[in-house]
């Protein structure tokens, strides 16, 4: 039972991080129809920001907000430099652009920083474990869970209670009519990227706090997972992104925990098979967006 609870905590921690990443992908996708594969590089930028802040002697807690800020700025620059020129192009053009941005950034990280992983010093507090109700839990896991859920709550408030958040949701449903109402296209799209950068930055801090290192491809795998999570949840749906992220976190952790050792090397294909099985039953995902298939911009 203890083992189960421990794995449960691990699954929520990992699922929460996937959910944040999937939310970032979903926000940009719902507004401009772009699946941003360079989202992972926002994470990596955040990771390197943590690394450089550490070199400069900044404590982790002070470095974390700067690292998140770095991802927000990087996301805004990405939009301005790479995606604005192709905004009205086809989905395929935007997708290829995002791959190009990702590969260019990965190459820059490899050549300008280092090809090998760089260590990030974590505060002692994060590496400890605490005993809750008779079983041991890592402080970093608790922090990841608390931060992920707090972020989701803040995002939810922003999207539901502020005029800007409501305007962004309106633009995701019918961009032309939102513009008729005076919602500025440039601002909404930049806002979507800023939010996705914020979410990627927070996810990066959580990710690094579990692994204590950063490398040029740090963001690649988690964002690939987040992409699968957002498809699983329903592409473009925010609640779906959270559901998909959590589901994927649980699949991954519980397969690792309960598959017999000789099956462990097949855990990824088994996990993906489960995802495919869900999609066969629910082709639009667990909680699809209301406006699947409607026209964008």
């Amino acid at each position, binding site marked *: 039972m203890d083992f189960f609870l421990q794995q449960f905590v691990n699954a929520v921690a990992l699922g929460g991080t996937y959910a944040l990443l999937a939310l970032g992908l979903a926000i940009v996708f719902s507004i401009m129809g772009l699946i941003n594969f360079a989202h992972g590089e926002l994470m990596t930028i955040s990771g390197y920001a943590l690394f450089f802040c550490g070199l400069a002697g900044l404590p982790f807690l002070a470095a974390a907000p700067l690292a998140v800020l770095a991802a927000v700025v990087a996301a805004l620059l990405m939009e301005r430099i790479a995606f604005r020129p192709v905004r009205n192009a086809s989905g395929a053009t935007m997708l290829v652009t995002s791959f190009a941005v990702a590969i260019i950034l990965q190459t820059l990280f490899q050549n300008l920083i280092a090809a090998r992983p760089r260590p990030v010093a974590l505060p002692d507090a994060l590496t400890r474990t605490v005993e809750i109700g008779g079983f041991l839990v890592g402080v970093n896991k608790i922090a990841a869970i608390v931060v992920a859920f707090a972020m989701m709550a803040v995002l939810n408030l922003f999207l539901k209670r502020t005029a800007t958040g*409501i305007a962004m*949701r309106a633009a995701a449903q019918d961009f032309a009519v939102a513009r008729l*109402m005076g919602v500025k296209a440039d601002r909404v799209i930049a806002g979507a990227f800023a939010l996705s950068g914020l979410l990627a930055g927070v996810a990066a801090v959580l990710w690094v706090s579990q692994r204590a290192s950063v490398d040029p491809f740090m963001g690649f795998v988690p964002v690939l997972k987040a992409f699968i999570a957002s498809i699983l949840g329903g592409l473009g749906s925010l609640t779906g992104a959270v559901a998909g992220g959590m589901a994927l976190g649980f699949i991954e952790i519980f397969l690792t925990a309960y598959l017999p050792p000789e099956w462990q090397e097949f855990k990824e294909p088994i996990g993906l098979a489960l995802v495919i099985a869900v999609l066969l039953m629910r082709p639009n995902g667990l909680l699809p967006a209301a406006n699947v298939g409607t026209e964008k911009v």
Partner: protein
Amino acid sequence: MTVLEVEGLEVAYGAVVAVRGVDLAVAAGEAVALVGANGAGKSSTLNAVVGLAPATAGRIRFKGDEIRGVPTERLVRRGLTLSPEGRRVFPGLTVEENLVVGGYARRRAAARTAAEMYSLFPILAERRRQLAGTLSGGQQQMLAIARALMSGPELLLLDEPSLGLAPQIVEQIFDLVATLRGRGVTMLLVEQNVAMALDVVDRAYVMAQGRIVGSGTAAELRASDLVAAAYLGAH
């Protein structure tokens, strides 16, 4: 004072010319209709005025300023709002949220304007927390008009408000248009339903095959066979 002045407007989608040389004007306080058969170019004309359809030639002046080429999102701040064809409420937003977006360009006055809308449309007040996509067609049309009014427009462009609604509801919508006119809202109304449109406007233009083929006061047009000819394809 002339609020809207369109001269020699041409709208083309690639090689397809939808509107050819349209001239029209709307003065402050006036309610004007643009009528004609399906495909006559009425909606294209309205969409070109707000920058949602490509105006390939001509002039569009709003309160004396040229607005051809001005981005759609800036027009609402100048006082020009379109309630689009097919209502296009934001289905996944509540009634209240739809109004928030409608008032986005002047957020400071939004709360007061929303209260006015709820008194003008009591049904929307009742359903304020309901998702707009779950409203009936007539209610969605009321919401679309209320949303457009949230920006406090000096000219309201109404595109086919009666489209696809049951006859009873159509009457309600036209009553509403008449009420708005009574309140001094300047309007340019695009309609296929000529008889009802002529009852609620001061003047009308008749369109056929992308051109204005006639115009006059509501009474003049009712007496002439111009409208019937436009619908039967005599042009």
